[in-house]
């Protein structure tokens, strides 16, 4: 069975194995949920994606601020030379 994906019991642990190049898939109906103890996996997955998007947005907006410190230094030197 080694190469086949399988669900087995090992010393009381329940183990889902995928063989090489084969998958194990869990498919719920359109309104079904995947739950891990109390957590709804779908919600957690959408949180992962939301986090990813917000990080992108933050990177973009922090990119704009990138050259501010050098500008401030420049201004300071201008003021001193006045």
């Amino acid at each position: 069975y080694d190469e086949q994906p399988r669900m087995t019991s090992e010393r009381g642990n329940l183990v889902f194995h995928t063989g090489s190049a084969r998958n194990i898939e869990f498919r719920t109906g359109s309104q079904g949920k995947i739950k891990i103890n109390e957590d709804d996996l779908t919600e957690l997955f959408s949180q992962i994606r939301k986090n990813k998007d917000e990080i992108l947005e933050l990177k973009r907006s922090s990119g704009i601020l990138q050259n501010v410190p050098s500008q401030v230094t420049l201004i300071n030197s201008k003021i001193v030379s006045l």
Partner: protein
Amino acid sequence: VYKQWIPNTNFENASNWDKGRIPCANEVVLFKSNEVISVFVQTTHSLMDMYLPLTGEFIMAPGAGFAAFDGSWDPGCDTGSAVSFTDAERYRWYDPSVWHAATSLEDLEQGNYIFAVDEERVPCQYDDVIFQPETSFRVNVDSSERMIHLRSISIMGQKFTSDMALADYMQSSSALRQFHGNSTFQVTNARCPDKSGCECGNAGEHGQICAALFGDNGTQCPALVCKDPFQPIGHCCEICGATISLEYTSGFDIRQYQNRLQHTFLSLPKYAGVQMAISKVRKPQTFLGIVPRASVPVVQIVLLDDKTGSQTGTHAEQLAEDIMHDIAEHGDTFGIVTGTMQVATGSNSSGQ
């Protein structure tokens, strides 16, 4: 006495499948949608397609599991045919044919089962009930008294000797799949307190026990070759053979007397084919032979043999006579007042 439940709903039990064998990898495995079931799985099975019940459980032994089938050829298997798990609802607690009885766990393991009248083939109030570890099962526990009294009950390796622990277990989802019906269990962890023996306590379920034994298709008692067969108390059918009914004093010890019969008579080569059941039963008293009155406890010995034709029951009769002589000589020392014998054989019939 230990009583062990025989049927199981294990995945690997060929008799649980409509084809009489476990499913092969490229078959469609079907569990009925509405069948509530607990299935113990002992090994890993490759499968193509399996429909699970809406309510049920698969208990996985170490190393057990399910694997995807890679489509390779499986000899002797019709691709795409369906194999169904058979109805597990049909097994009833009060069916004498689904229990093994033995006087020790060792005997149970070795298959040294004891013979008993039908009522006592079902667990009695001082019995230890065993559902074997590593098996799943489903039992209908409907009873007319809605209560089943036991000494203890062991389920999947766990022994319950108190009502509280058992009640806890009975709330578990496994228990709900294993037991269905209107009865609750009471376990006392107590042995029979009376050395002269205790009644089994199943007399109230006699009708149900015999109905279960005959099955839904209304099988009846087997035809008998002896004249005037009779029905031992607690048994569903008439028999050929012998019974002895003992009246006893407070000094009577049923275990001690059973051992004596065992060692003095049943161990003799000539009685190798004779089976004996001994237990305390409640004998209905009749007044003027007609009107049932109060009942009295007696100790009933039932003897059956393996003889056939005109010899049917003759060895049982011989043993009964030996026992009656023994009672006449030594009955006092065992606390036996009188013994009454009843026999029915293929060669003659008599009653005393």
